């Protein structure tokens, strides 16, 4: 699946997006896999209360299923307007 990062999450991880091969069942499972990879991922996902997630461009929850999902985006709370 395509995983996209925005704002300071993108800066902390160091890339805007990547293709991730995973069997993670939920967003939380995917985060656990990413955190186990490298320190920069571990740091970016250290406090998920500071993060939001969108699945296929819809705001979602961290316990949501990833079944059928093609695009996951992680970002801080939005500051539009």
């Amino acid at each position, binding site marked *: 699946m395509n995983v996209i990062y925005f704002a300071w999450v993108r800066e902390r991880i160091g890339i805007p997006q990547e293709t991730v091969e995973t069997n993670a069942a939920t967003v939380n499972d995917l985060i656990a896999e990413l955190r186990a990879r490298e320190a920069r991922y571990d740091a970016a996902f250290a406090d998920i209360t500071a993060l939001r997630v*969108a699945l296929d*461009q819809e*705001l979602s929850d961290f316990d949501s299923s990833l079944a059928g999902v093609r695009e996951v*985006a992680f*970002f*801080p*709370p939005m*500051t*539009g*307007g």
Partner: protein
Amino acid sequence: MTVRVQTDPFDAGAELNGFAKGRGDVGAVVSFTGVVRDTQGNLREMLIEHYPGMTEKAISAIADEARKRWDLADVLVIHRYGPLAVGAPIMMVATAAAHRAAAFEAADFLMDYLKSRAPFWKKEVTAEAETWVAAKNADEDALKRW
């Protein structure tokens, strides 16, 4: 309904003059324009990042919700991204309705939701530092009144 996400500047006055023009059922037009503010007196520019694809969908969904809640003749939302100078317009909303209460309330609703539910992120750039603007708890709390 018009939703535009763009890097280019816009002329809020010209947009407003053309908005809901010629609609005999419109008795009230309300607009809001957000402008880059230099809070500390040292802002070089504001950088706005967004999520192409989701941004347009999220704004359209918010505008659709406003049209469900209020009897609106038209809705306009323009939001810029990229580097913006102090004093530059960031975004505007306009609502048109038969009476002012619906137009005011819908514009207020749109602004509250665009602030916390449209995927934009603001970064303040000064000579010394680049700082992501943190979302305020008050902005999230503002959604509860709707």
